[in-house]
């Protein structure tokens, strides 16, 4: 136990990541950027993988590590769409995920926003529409913010979330 505590003390608290505070805006495409007036500065996010290669998921998971510390800008990943303000969708929407995605979208209470994360979800990744892939997320549910990248870096995602919470 003493080794565990010593390791915690040695690691310390990492410096707050600049993103989400006053950094330059990323080139995320936002149509209705500001949620702060409606929802305050804390956001609950439900992630839906609609057929991604798992790259975007790795970066969403990385957001939770001590370096990016997503919770510090008031964003929390939640287990149910019913607890969420934001649906965070990755992947090129495979046929099998169309219905689950719609169901998750309906389950998010209003007011809600949809964020399409990564090039596939924006409709410009390697997975173009084909016999089993519908393409961009906005073909299935309306999208409010699209974050570019393959996958988008954690800094880009943090900055995009910051645009949503910025008053």
């Amino acid at each position, binding site marked *: 136990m003493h080794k565990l505590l010593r390791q915690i003390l040695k690691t310390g608290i990492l410096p707050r990541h600049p993103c989400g505070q006053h950094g330059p805006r990323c080139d995320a495409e936002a149509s209705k950027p500001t949620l702060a007036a409606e929802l305050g500065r804390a956001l609950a996010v439900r992630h839906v993988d609609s*057929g991604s*290669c798992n790259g975007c998921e790795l970066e969403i998971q990385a957001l939770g590590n*001590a370096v990016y510390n997503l919770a510090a800008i008031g964003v929390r990943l939640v287990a149910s769409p019913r607890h969420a303000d934001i649906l965070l969708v990755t992947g090129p929407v495979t046929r099998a*995920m169309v219905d689950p995605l719609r169901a998750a979208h309906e389950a998010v209470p209003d007011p809600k926003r949809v964020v399409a994360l990564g090039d596939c979800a924006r409709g410009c990744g390697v997975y173009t529409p084909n016999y*089993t892939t519908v393409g961009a997320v906005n073909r299935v549910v309306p999208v409010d913010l699209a974050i570019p990248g393959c996958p988008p870096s954690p800094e880009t995602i943090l900055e995009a979330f910051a645009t949503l919470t910025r008053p």
Partner: protein
Amino acid sequence: MSWMRLSSPLPIHHAWVDSALWRALAVQWHCEDGQLIALWGSDERPAGLGFVVHAVIICADKWHWISLRAGIDNPRFPALSDLFPAAARQERALFDLLGIACDAGDTRSWLRHDAWGPADFPLRRDFTEGPPTTSADQPYPFISVRGNGVHEIAVGPIHAGTIEPGHFRFSVVGDEILRLEERLGYTHKGVAKRLEGMPLRDGGRLAGRICADSTAAYAGAYAMAVEMVCACAVPPRALWLRALLWERERIANHLGDLGALCQDGGLAFGHTQFGLLKERWIQTHGRLFGHRYLMDMIVPGGVARDLDATAIALLDSECTTLVAATRHLQYIVDDHAGLQERFLGTGRLAEAQARALGAVGLAARASGVSCDLRVSAPTPPYDILNTQISLHHGGDVAARVAVRFEEIYESARLIRTLLAALPTGPVRADCGRPEGSLGLGAVEGWRGLILVAVTRAPDTDSHHVHIHDPSWQNWPLLEHAVLGDLVPDFPLINKSFNLAYSGHDQ
């Protein structure tokens, strides 16, 4: 029948067989404890061969690739799943994609999900591609368990965490799992069809985006297969850098999973610490290789970037730092009674089961099955690295944790060895035009063996690429490992395997 030795660094032979021989060889290799690696089909009508079914089976460290002409109008082949259970889902997928039937018992569709019609077969060359159908997905006939107090728990396709989509159907009594049935295919994106439509040399970008956590291994196996078809000699320095990338990828994933296992086991401290180690590790990827997950680094012909002396020194010292930090954390994890109580005996997969099911990769090694491509069929530079297999016999979560720790140390040693003796010279050769008709690449990824097979009709310049993920073998292991365990332990057991959804569904 005549065996043809393929000009590959792997010890592989190819032969055309008929139905009787297909079955007879499979029975023989089954009796000799062979292992089925992949079973797939291709539409070779452009080459005048009709529909063809292929299998790669390893027996006594010899690789056999057998191809069977299945006919044209009503293609069929003898099933292998009664001998090799790992073939069962591949046979179902083969019918979904190509309409080649076999006499196996389970005829439920596996990948189709009603995205295309039951009489349409997307991998046939005359398949007219349109948008997916929009009819509702038909209910899937799960096998139900009856009895006093038995009930079902349906999980997915959307899971509670940040993970890929798939469905798990548990039959339970109270908290105890009586049966688990997996339903996958939600992330099928038609990769094989996409690869058919692009030149072989351009497919690497897509191959590296089938399963992001194994992008280096996928791109590497794809490049090997294409290089074989193009008779391209890869410069030694590029081969060494590829091995370096594969080992770095292995370490990154083991660090991430150890963190997640600590989290699921109730030790948030471990999640934070391992998460930090992984983040620093992949930040180095970003700086030196241009991508945090190493995408687009390995290309047919070599690698996209070289390392200078400063980078080599940095990578070397990073290994030393990482091993010291990981050993320190392992001491804490091993010493933590609460965590060990969750790990020990949970999700046990016995060695006999692992062998019968054809387990591969780290899951096999944690159940006492010694299989590692880097040792059994080492391609350069592994032929001189003397890789040590991490073998444990417990078969439980604790054993899979132990294998991951040991593989981090061994991979760090390999990286330092590679860096110390990196050959000089170019890192990329021109791949040239495709000439041959068969290509095969295989890499021991962090989950297990990833295989890429290319079949090509030289006269018409059409090709088919099959990419096999080790999760095909290992997903069924999970169904067995959870039996008798508690539902709340499922996330922990699942994470200890951490199998691919997108890699499997493609």
